[in-house]
């Protein structure tokens, strides 16, 4: 097989470029790398009684639009509540200071995310602020337990 050096070099160049482009495309289109990777952001803190299956990197939505990501989750040693750091894009720096956060589930078996609902306060959330109103995740076992309890107590009447 006689292939000229020039043709070989062109083919190798195309191959390496295609491989690099494939890696780049994987990073860009297949993974979540690009969503809120860059740009200014600020952090607010929420305390939740129970975060259920929330994980670091979960999206934060307001009105269905993604505005940030969960940055860190740890247990507060004093209150034994979950302390969640919410990293929000600086494009949305005018959220009212009484904005509330709920832990929601996308679909029946989907992953958990944080839904924010704006309040009516004239002041806005600043970096490092703490959310006043939070709502824990719904835990299916607790719901079933409560349902059974209600059933049982209702049956006496």
């Amino acid at each position, binding site marked *: 097989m006689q292939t000229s050096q020039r043709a070989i070099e062109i083919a190798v160049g195309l191959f390496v470029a295609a491989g690099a482009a494939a890696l780049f495309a994987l990073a860009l289109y297949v993974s979540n790398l690009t969503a809120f990777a860059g740009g200014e952001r600020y952090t607010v803190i929420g305390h939740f009684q129970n975060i259920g299956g929330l994980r670091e*990197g979960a999206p934060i939505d307001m009105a269905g639009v993604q505005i940030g990501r969960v940055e860190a989750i740890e247990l507060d040693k004093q209150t034994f509540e979950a302390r969640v750091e919410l990293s929000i894009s600086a494009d949305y720096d005018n959220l009212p200071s009484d904005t509330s956060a709920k832990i929601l589930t996308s679909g029946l078996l989907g992953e958990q995310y944080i839904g924010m609902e704006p309040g009516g306060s004239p002041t806005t959330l600043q970096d490092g602020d703490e959310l006043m109103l939070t709502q824990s995740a719904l835990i299916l076992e607790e719901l079933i337990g409560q349902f059974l309890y209600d059933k049982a107590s209702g049956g006496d009447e």
Partner: protein
Amino acid sequence: MLARIQDLGAATLTAIGRIGRSSLFLGRLLAGLPLLVKRPGLVIQQLYVIGVLSLVIISVSGVFVGMVLALQGYYTLVDFGAEQSVGTLVALSLTRELGPVVTALLFGGRAGSALTAEIGLMKATDQLSSMEMMAVDPERRVVAPRLLAGFIAMPLLAAIFILLGVGGGYVVATSMLGIDGGAYWSQMQANVSFSDDIANGVIKSLTFGFVATWIAVFEGYDCKPTSEGVSRATTRTVVHTSLAVLGLDFLLTALMFD
């Protein structure tokens, strides 16, 4: 009885000798790599043989593996009403496991066996010894460029494999299974993480590429310089590469994913 024990001992000694020779061989090759900076043409030539000529089989397999994953995943997921997650399933299986592993197995069969046969025949026809006669080090002139080219080509081939697999899955999911294209991509992007899944897949493919090429060039360089020796070495390359890739895959998975 004593003869059996002697056979066992001889086999063990041979195996240990091979491990030792291959390690020393690798050390000499790695020491010779910096000299390749002056001769990039040698590496480009090998990248063509190892990488470009493997593209067809890698691309075709990638597309079909992705399509089969989408189909099979759909049939299972639809029972749970989770068929929208088929994109996640395809992308995670490809980036974490199938991309690096299947690429490495194909790479061992397509490029590795060719490397062994080529170097083995060079040895059998005394081309390597005549190089030494002319004060050309065959390890640096012949073997080192092939090792480097395999190391470079493998992750690129794996990336192409994965991307085409995800594309093939997309075509099947949207055109045959009626899954919304937007859901396919968005579910995938929500669940595939760059640092965990894609970076680990790249680390795997780098490791596999290194090991597969190392085995191939060593088997060729170490074979008996006869027709039978070359054919045995070629078979050993494919078998050992497959075993090493599958074993290493378990090890790397256990180490990297928690």
